[in-house]
């Protein structure tokens, strides 16, 4: 077990280092002198000289990377040009919205995807299965922003039941009631992801139901419901649960479009705004934070999967 943990963590670390080199290179790959990329076009020559030296941009590139990585490890991701504030605090401001949106979306994904996927699998081949699978494929083929715009039209503009945009923090005024601002965005974001989990649950249940031990259980005369509950479901859900972590991590970046449609003050919208504002340090910081999150969640999922199912081997 421990050698598995070490190997897996080591591989993640190597990937992270390689990814961080790419993310570091981002500032240098963007068209223009990196110093103006970092300071904005309005920087004065004195500022340029000062910062060039302070950030070590006159040093060899390898040294620059090490300095940048060292600072990133201590949480210093540089300064935002637009906000004139540390990048980390700018990102932290969007974290509440993004994490809440992803969490609520996950709740929908699990509540919709898993049970419906189970029903489809248990009625494999029937019209119920074909209809549900068809709907799932349709949901996976719909652009989220398009659904979001029509949800706004129906539930905000026409019916007036829910707010159409924005999200005031639950920690300031309004309390948990503010979660209603996230209802439409989370449903929008959940649709394609619930479809994917539905398909995965169905496929996983069908896979497991072909296993020898399921046939043995049936042959022993265990009631069909018991077979499904104790033998198929438990094993099938293992694969599904491991997909949850990955889905959650993916949601943070998939929310880019949804947050833009609903004008939510999250990290996703911040990416788009920063691209339009040419606020490159913020873009770089967000990419780094999300990649770290992505890799960390994947590592945790892999390790817990191994803990739950010792048959898993390192590939």
């Amino acid at each position, binding site marked *: 077990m421990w050698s598995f943990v070490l190997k897996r963590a080591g591989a993640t670390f190597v990937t992270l280092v390689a990814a961080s080199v790419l993310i570091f290179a981002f500032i240098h790959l963007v068209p223009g002198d990196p110093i103006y990329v970092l300071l904005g076009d309005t920087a004065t020559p004195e500022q340029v000289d000062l910062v060039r030296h302070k950030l070590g941009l006159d040093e060899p590139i390898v040294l620059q990377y090490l300095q940048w990585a060292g600072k990133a490890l201590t949480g210093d991701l540089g300064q935002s040009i637009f906000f004139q504030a540390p990048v980390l605090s700018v990102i932290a401001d969007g974290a509440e919205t993004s994490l809440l949106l992803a969490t609520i979306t996950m709740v929908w994904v699990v509540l919709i995807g898993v049970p419906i996927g189970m029903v489809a699998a248990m009625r494999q081949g029937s019209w119920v299965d074909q209809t549900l699978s068809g709907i799932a494929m349709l949901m996976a083929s719909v*652009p989220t922003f398009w659904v979001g715009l029509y949800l706004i039209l129906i539930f905000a503009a026409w019916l007036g039941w829910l707010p159409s945009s924005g999200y005031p923090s639950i920690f300031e005024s309004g309390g948990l009631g503010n979660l209603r601002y996230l209802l439409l965005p989370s449903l929008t974001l959940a649709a394609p992801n619930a479809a994917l989990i539905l398909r995965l649950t169905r496929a996983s249940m069908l896979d497991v139901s072909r296993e020898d031990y399921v046939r043995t259980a049936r042959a022993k005369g265990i009631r069909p419901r018991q077979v499904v509950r104790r033998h198929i479901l438990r094993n099938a859900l293992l694969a599904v649960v491991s997909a949850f972590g*990955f889905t959650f991590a993916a949601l*943070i970046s998939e929310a*880019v479009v949804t947050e833009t449609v609903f004008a939510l003050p999250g990290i996703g919208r911040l990416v*788009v705004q920063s*691209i339009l504002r040419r606020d490159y340090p913020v873009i770089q910081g967000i990419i780094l934070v999300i990649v770290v999150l992505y890799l960390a969640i994947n590592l945790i999922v892999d390790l817990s999967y191994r803990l739950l199912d010792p048959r898993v081997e390192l590939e």
Partner: protein
Amino acid sequence: MTRDRLHSWLAPFLGRPIALLGLAILVGMILAAIFASVLSPYDPRAIDPIIRLSPPNAAHWFGTDQFGRDTLSRVIYSSRMALLIGVGVVSFALLTGVPIGVFSALFPRLGHVLMRMVDVLMSFPALLLALGLIVVLGQSVANAIIAIGAVYLTTTTRITYGLTLRLRAETYVEAARSMGSGTAWVVVKHVLPNLISPLLVQASFVFAFAQLSAASLDFLGLGAPPDIPSWGNMLAESRTFITRAPWLLFFPGMMIVLTAFSLNLVGDALRDRLDPRFQEMFASRRRR
């Protein structure tokens, strides 16, 4: 084409009316893109402020937009962009992913390093990777194709790699090698022909998801330049008019759905005809 060959091509779709429907929509889209100038009742760029935001009527079946441009004509012309994005992204993914995947499987020492590099690209969420590349490369249609193509390069490489590893272990490949066949011969004669069917499945799915990614980029204003008609651009432009003219967003959005849906159906139908050992590679096919 002989009748037998036609039959074998259509075989995955026969007896599956819904897959046949997907194929029909796809063919319709290709025809619309080719004959756009003949099919469109109006010039897609012709402005007529007097009839702006008119609902669907006899003269303008899909209504007109905020500049009085005919929505039907714009929807038809936009299929060119959709086809270009789809073909472009699939070509990019295949032309990069297949050589890297085959090479890595045949030459494990360097191949291992290459596959680790693909893993690194995989650690970037799909949309974020595409956005980052757009920032570096600049905004244009070609760069949108490269940015989205890079996202699907990873999955294509992995699938090719996995398939080639399996094929390499097949008895007939071993037999060919033991009789002195060179690596190049093995690739051309045994590996590539066997990759065609699974890569066709992969191409269908990549085409489908490329449509959604491109629509997202266009919607964010970071994809095709706004003067080029595309379904995503149409949605981005008419977004603010949704309460006044809800039908405006319906048709372009529906086209994106139909295109992605039909390609997913085609991909599913093709996959079900694959060698069962290859099918599992497409279990979680969406790159995120």
